[in-house]
């Protein structure tokens, strides 16, 4: 094994890229869960976003339109979940699982003619001045725009939850839906909007995989990224700041194991590939989760 072949600057730089899909999906799910809804369909929405983004980007040759298509695709798929859980009061765990199974099938069908095609180029930004700073420049300021879009969404969600009236209402609905209803807030409406936001973010995360990170379409390419995003929301105790930390931690493990594979580590490739999943489990065990939103996962039905 040749550890000297691992360049720490490149490692840190690719860490940000590796973390972005998870970060996008997780921040969406964080909003959904803060509204009191547990959507286990992140994996399904992510892979649907991946294929929608890829198809649109190939058709229009514009990665930006691809991302837009992915967000719409993810949001539309999440509507099924929203309708079932919010209007027909179905069990959220089961419906989320169904969404994942359905999304995997749907994406495979949609992506049939797209296997082996290359995605259109999505060049990195080179941010002048900041990008020239040694070490920090290449690590932080020389990425593709979606990395910064992801960070902006996290920042926006943080400010939204902390400072805005709508964010306060969203937290209230997630904390105690009966009380929120008694005060006259529209529990179902708030939750539907949150669910769609979650779907759109998961779609973006999926498209980041198929348009930037891989960049190709293959069936089942999310390989559990959606589930890891769910785990990171728990790890983050439903707080955006810690979410960022969790996603980068995860990105770090992924990048490190890929680098070790490339460097020809003595451990088998399969065992290195297990690392991100084992790390996620370890993190879930070690980190004591904070207090979950009070109404998380419960159906709401306005009775008399």
């Amino acid at each position, binding site marked *: 094994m040749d550890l000297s072949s691992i360049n720490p600057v490149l490692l840190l730089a690719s860490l940000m890229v590796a973390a972005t899909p998870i970060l996008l999906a997780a921040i969406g799910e964080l909003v959904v869960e803060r509204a009191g809804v547990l959507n286990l369909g992140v994996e399904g929405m992510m892979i649907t976003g991946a294929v929608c983004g890829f198809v649109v980007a190939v058709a229009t040759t514009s990665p930006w339109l691809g991302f837009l298509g992915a967000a719409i695709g993810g949001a539309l798929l999440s509507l099924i979940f929203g309708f079932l859980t919010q209007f027909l009061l*179905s069990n959220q765990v089961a419906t989320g699982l169904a969404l994942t199974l359905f999304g995997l099938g749907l994406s495979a069908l949609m992506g049939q003619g797209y296997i082996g095609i290359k995605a259109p180029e999505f060049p990195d930004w080179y941010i002048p001045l900041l990008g020239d700073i040694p070490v920090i420049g290449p690590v932080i300021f020389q990425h593709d725009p979606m990395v910064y879009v992801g960070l902006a969404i996290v920042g926006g969600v943080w400010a939204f939850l902390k400072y805005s009236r709508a964010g306060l209402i969203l937290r209230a609905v997630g904390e105690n839906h009966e009380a929120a209803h008694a005060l006259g807030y529209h529990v179902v409406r708030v939750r539907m909007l949150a669910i769609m936001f979650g779907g759109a973010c998961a779609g973006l995360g999926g498209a980041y995989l198929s348009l930037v990170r891989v960049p190709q379409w293959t069936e089942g390419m999310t390989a559990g990224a959606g589930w890891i995003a769910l785990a990171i929301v728990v790890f983050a105790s439903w707080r955006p700041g810690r979410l960022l930390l969790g996603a980068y931690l995860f990105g770090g493990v992924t990048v490190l194991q890929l680098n070790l594979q490339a460097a020809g580590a003595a451990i088998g490739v399969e065992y290195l590939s297990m690392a991100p999943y084992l790390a996620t489990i370890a993190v879930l065990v070690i980190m004591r989760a904070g207090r979950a939103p009070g109404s998380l996962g419960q159906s709401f039905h306005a009775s008399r």
Partner: protein
Amino acid sequence: MIMLEKRPQPSRGWTFATPVVAVVLTMFFGGLLFAALGQDPLVTIRTIFLDPLFSEFAWFYRPQLLIKGAPLVLIAIGLSFGFRAGIWNIGAEGQYIVGAICGAAVGLAFYPMESFIIFPLMVIAGASGGLLWAMIPGLLRVRFGTNEILVSLMLVYVAEQLLASMALGALRNPDGMGFPGSRNLSQYESAANLEIIAGSGMHWGVLTAFLAVIVAYVALSRHIFGFNVRLSGQSPRAARFAGVNPGLLVLICMAISGALAGLAGLFEVAGPAGQISIDFNVGYGFTAIIVAFLGRLHPVGILLAGGLMALTYIGGEIAQSNLGLPIAAIQILQGMLLFFLLAVDVLTNYRITWARKIA
């Protein structure tokens, strides 16, 4: 305006009717999907749901129904206990893989010795493998309060990597000229999961699945264990008041589902699949979740649902080869089935009323 009104108690009629309604709706919307894919919807539906049973080649497909249905039923029966108790083991796919690896490893260790004791040992190893793999999320939940959904699912991906490593490494056939995959167990008499009646598809796994259905039925309807499982799922606090130890219940439910998934894996690897290979698992562990819900978590329901789901697998393969229907369409069909079931399930607990708006 359409309103939902909670029923004073669940409707018995709808409990039985909802799966049927869901199947009918799935056939209808599945037909629309097939039409959108350029197929004749009626022909496709017939090919998927009827041809495996009634076409001129049905003699070939009917045994397949048992072979595909058995692992689904076996896993779903195990899952149903946990699902009823609010314990969500959704990593049955991983337990299935590990059960197969453990069982196959025991069999391969004896090769080429012949003895009647080998297959029973493999069965024990398969069940233990799945059980131990399921104990990981179980113990973590009881000891650290870790979410068992996420842990059991992460372990599926770990198990898949383990499978690849075994197929390429420790369990690779030394006489296989470097190709990945183990020796073929179905050609090693002492380790093979043979058909009990030749040509029927009835292997030991099918028998075990039927047994599991009966035992589960008795446990759920007649035994205090089943009562405690149901009670814990519906009212965790009432269960504690009744004296149920919640941690122990989590472990028992995880153990049952893990062991049955492991058994399913063992019977598959020693029979229909024959060997440990990289693509040994085909998603039975996930489809079994649909089977469990479609069967309303009831043993007899699961038996019927397992048969139906096996039918869509076989019918899907026929439609693929005869009509060129993409196999992903079958996956969508299965997902739709679960969606419709969850959607119409609302009728079990709620009544739909048309409330007139007051001026």
